[in-house]
């Protein structure tokens, strides 16, 4: 029986696929480019993200309930379908390796600086592999629980930071040129394009027609969290200081001091964020396994999960010899890869679907 996930669970999965990396290193990069107008870049990214969610949902509408690779095969023929499946599988595997390494760097920088990276990456990938083996339904339920946790933690965090916030630090508005604001919006737009994972998730939805709703909710939730971190960073620290912070949201939570009894609460925030990070890794490993298993006509998903996990540990540790500048590399240098996997490829699929629409309709009417 094909598993079925609800619309909100799908939205939670999309949100988890976007947010963890986006709030990690992107805010300081955006603020270093667009200064106090970085939040406007965040709004631009939100609008672009919604447009991408809309586009992805429209492509998904053409799918009549088939799994992604089967859908591609039935639309474009076997060789092309398999090629698209393999391409996406490799893309998601590559992204998974990058995510594993960026999260490993983060844990190593913030908490476990003396623990060897192979141990951190190994444990992370092992937990992710275990989650993926439980299937998409279990993953979706976990993502939804994590989303609820975020919805509790975020307002609490803003509340305890309330006295440090000074909105005047956002002024003057539009001090930076429109070009700089657009450039600053590129990293978040690239990460918001992860909404394309909907292409793989829609067939598992109870109501595939609600794919648009799930994509929009997930994208908006992700973009709003980025906006919140940007606004908190700017209104608390100002535009000059944030660019020197590798992990802005950790620095923001680190300054909370309520009397002498509530201090160092960044540990709790980071703990909740860790959960989102595991969901993100699981979504990407799932996507990679899904595409490769169906493209290569493999019977066992478990063996593929195991194989890809081992390969991911080795790749993520050996590809980048040092932590230095990790956040920058993953947020900026990774942009072309994100655009190719999440925008160019779906656009080509959309184009292909448009071209072959007539042929399919003809085939459909002939068969009926």
């Amino acid at each position, binding site marked *: 029986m094909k598993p079925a996930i609800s619309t909100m669970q799908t939205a939670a999965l999309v949100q988890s696929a976007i947010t963890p990396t986006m709030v990690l290193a992107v805010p300081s990069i955006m603020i270093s480019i667009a200064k106090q107008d970085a939040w406007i870049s965040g709004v631009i990214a939100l609008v672009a993200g919604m447009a991408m969610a809309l586009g992805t949902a429209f492509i998904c509408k053409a799918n009549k309930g088939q799994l992604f690779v089967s859908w591609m095969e039935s639309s474009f023929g076997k060789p092309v379908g398999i090629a698209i499946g393999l391409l996406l599988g490799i893309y998601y595997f590559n992204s998974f390796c990058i995510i594993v390494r960026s999260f490993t760097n983060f844990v190593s920088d913030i908490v476990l600086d003396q623990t060897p990276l192979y141990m951190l990456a190994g444990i992370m990938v092992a937990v992710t592999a275990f989650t993926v083996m439980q299937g998409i339904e279990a993953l979706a339920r976990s993502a939804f629980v994590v989303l609820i946790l975020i919805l509790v933690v975020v307002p609490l965090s803003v509340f305890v930071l309330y006295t440090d916030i000074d909105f005047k630090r956002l002024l003057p508005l539009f001090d930076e040129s429109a070009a700089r604001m657009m450039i600053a919006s590129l990293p978040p737009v690239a990460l918001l394009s992860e909404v394309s994972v909907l292409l793989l998730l829609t067939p598992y939805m109870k109501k595939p027609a609600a794919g648009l709703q799930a994509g929009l909710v997930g994208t908006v939730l992700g973009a709003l969290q980025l906006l919140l971190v940007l606004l908190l960073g700017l209104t608390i*620290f100002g535009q000059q200081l944030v660019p020197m912070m590798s992990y802005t949201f950790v620095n923001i939570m680190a*300054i909370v001091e309520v009397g002498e009894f509530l201090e160092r609460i960044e540990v709790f925030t980071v703990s909740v964020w860790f959960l989102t990070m595991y969901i993100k890794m699981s979504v990407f490993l799932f996507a990679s396994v899904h595409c490769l298993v169906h493209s290569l006509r493999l019977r066992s998903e478990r063996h593929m999960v195991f194989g890809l996990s081992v390969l991911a540990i080795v790749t993520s540790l050996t590809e980048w010899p040092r932590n230095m500048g990790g956040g920058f590399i993953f947020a900026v240098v990774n942009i072309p890869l994100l655009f190719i996997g999440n925008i160019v490829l779906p656009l080509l699929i959309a184009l292909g679907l448009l071209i072959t629409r007539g042929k399919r309709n003809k085939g459909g009417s002939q068969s009926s």
Partner: protein
Amino acid sequence: MRIRIKSFLSVVVLLFAALVTTGCWNRIELNEIAITSATGIDWDGENWIVSYQVVIPAAISSVTGGSGGTGPKSPIIVYSTKGKTIRDAIMHSFSESPRKLFFAHNRVVVIGEKAMRKGVNELIDVYFRNSGSRETVSVLATPGTSRRVLEQFMQLQAISGAGMKEIILSEMKNTSILPNVPVYQLAMEITGDAKSAVVPEIFVSGSEDTSSLDSFSSTSIPSKLKLGRLAILKNDQMIGWMSRKESLGAAYLRDSVQQSFVVVPCEDQEGKKGFDTVQILKSKTKIIPKLQGGQLSFKADVDVTGTLMESNCAQDLFKPGVIQSLEKEGEVQIIAMMQEAWKKGQELQVDLFGAAEKTHRKYPKQWKEWSNSWDEVFAKSPLEAKVKFRMARMGLSNKSFQYLLDKKEK
């Protein structure tokens, strides 16, 4: 058989996981760390000298009256290390301390004047780069060496590092003369539009040191740790001091007054002079930049609410005009303080009052031109101060005691 093998393998995997996922590499054992309550930074001309006030948990109970076999022992120990960089100096601590320094509970960082004049950028870098140290640590400046400050004991507080933090918080809350400046705020001010910052002073008041517990055998101690003036920083280097009066004026201009007090002169009907003390309960300052004919000027609008705490003038506070004249005098006092602080800032060519940020926000186009020579622009910009002083309460008596005495004599 197959199920048994599977179960056995699962147990082995679980045991292995339990073994390797305990965070062994980053474990922190309490008996292996030296908890620092205060850190001192000095510069000897060639090297950084970092001093540590380390807490001795076992000795705290003997000082605070707990059971102790051989009488009170010092709850803190102070030692210093030297290095080319701050972290280099800290690394040298491993050569002389049996425990690893643990900075997560550090409350204050005291910087000697020489180090302040050299620059604090290295210190800020250390705080933002390392996750162990906290950016909420309060920064204090001292005219001598920071080590001497760290060595002093304090009344009522066994760990003087924590005591120093409490003093500055109390001062900020009750008098607002000196601000509490955490490391992140210092970094924000230095990188701000005006590129200037302030740091409160702490010094040893008294001739002898209170660095021995023997000092506590009498009812008074030879010296105390006391807050004093305000150190002024341009970029990351200290360039001078501000008096306490100027510092309070600066606090009004920086809109950082929480509660404070003002002593205003008063005069009764017969011309006899005295003083009223007014506690400031609330204060709100708006600094508005104005550009007229190419000349930049600033207007400070201060809204102050106070309560009468003490009066030694023969006044009937119900009489029309008495409260108004008191309010008027309060306004004059606060305006004088603000003008004095502004003047001092202009003398030192340092904008401590957030005028640069306000100008940048109001005149973003002109700011691009002014930002390169802001110190000169600021030094030529006059301040027009306006205070609206409102006496909200008169305390529990509506006439001064002196008024009753004078009435009786008549």
